[in-house]
């Protein structure tokens, strides 16, 4: 059940295995109420996030994309999130040229112990996405529609 009243939207979360995924887990174990719109994709490190993951999701119909990794200086691999920070910040400023509202994409840092912070981040972000409403997405070739229909 969503804590938000509207119809669920499609929000994709790329979470690093070591911190944010743990943070989401902590929030779950602590039974903090969270919106259910988020579909989590676990990745080894925020440094693994190819900006194309985000773009592919947004082009393919995601209403929002959230990336979350370890706090700077706390990366399990020492510096993955430092690279991620640069890439994702560059990406965020790029989105408007495509006609994508940059608020549909956020990145942040949540550690494994910060269950409450995770709850706050995901609730805030999801609420923002609901405020923006469903995204329109670019049409696929007609012959491929069957594949998307299968996914929905």
């Amino acid at each position: 059940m969503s804590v938000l009243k509207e119809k669920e939207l499609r929000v994709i979360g790329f979470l690093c295995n070591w911190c944010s995924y743990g943070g989401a887990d902590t929030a779950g174990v602590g039974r903090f109420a969270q919106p259910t719109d988020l579909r989590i994709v676990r990745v080894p490190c925020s440094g693994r996030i190819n900006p194309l993951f985000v773009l592919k999701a947004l082009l393919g119909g995601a209403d929002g994309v959230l990336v979350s990794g370890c706090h700077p200086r706390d990366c399990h691999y020492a510096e993955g999130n430092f690279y991620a920070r640069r890439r994702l910040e560059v990406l965020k400023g790029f989105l408007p040229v495509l006609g994508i509202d940059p608020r549909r994409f956020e990145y942040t840092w949540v550690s494994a112990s910060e269950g409450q912070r995770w709850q706050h981040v995901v609730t805030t972000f999801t609420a923002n996405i609901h405020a923006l409403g469903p995204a329109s997405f670019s049409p696929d070739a007609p012959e491929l529609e069957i594949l998307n229909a299968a996914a929905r």
Partner: protein
Amino acid sequence: MAIQDDIKSAIAEALPGLSCVIGWGAGPEALRAAPLFMRDAADVDKFTAGFLAVNNPALFLPSLKGAKVGLVVKGCDARSVGQLVAENLVSREAIHLIGYPCRGVIDMDKATAALEGRCEPGEVKGLREENEDIVLDAPGGEIRLAKKDVAADKCARCRYPNAESADVFVGEKAAPVVERDDYADLAAFENMALDARKAFWEKEMSRCIRCYACRNACPLCVCRDHCVASSREPHWLTQADGVRDKLFFQLIHATHLAGRCTGCGECERACPVGIPLLTLKRAFSRQVEGLFGYTAGIDRSTPPLLTFKLEEPAIKEREW
């Protein structure tokens, strides 16, 4: 043109130590030159520079590894070379650069528009340059066009017309057209509402024929035969003729060029159906310049997305 003869002399002088020198020669029609690979004196005779010297010869560098090659370069071409060198993709020692003051090159979109109602660019039989004008031998008689009206957009915001890194520079240096790039073109584009921008790209990309000339004309697209766009592992793209896949390919290109693109505009020029692809790359360049103060092809420091700082003063993260 005196400067043309001087460039020819510089080429002839350098040629004995080089496998070839790449410049421009006569093309298949009056408004278009062709890349020219000069190997002997007879080839050098065919060299032409000037308003039609459009193609970026830096494109050929990565495929010519092994033998020292010469390039005649405009300022923007030299930036591509500079970036390839900065990324260790080519060795500066294996390249002989002959620079000259560039005063702009033609843009076929604008030439087409300027001629509309009179003739197609492909009907023009001859062209001569007269100072700030070009004079065309067109079916209905001569047509005079001001160069500035049909020059590429990149020329109107040219900061580096002179190939600063050239081994030999021929002629008097030209003054930069502007001191800084204010990305006014992007700002104008972003006057459109978000939905309109999205619709714009969908319409433009629906024309795309997936020939990948944009990629193959890009001097910094160095994966060449191993492009991820052709891969099925990972399977980024289908082969379908859909706007989503076609736009996503451009995002692959633009993303891979982020912080590396020097703005030479060859992607956009090469596009047979005239999709304004440089706009996407410039959106990344604006970000990279704004956040990290980095100018691709000019700065010699590590490209900004290949490094980081512990504290990033320019990045203001969202408060949660």
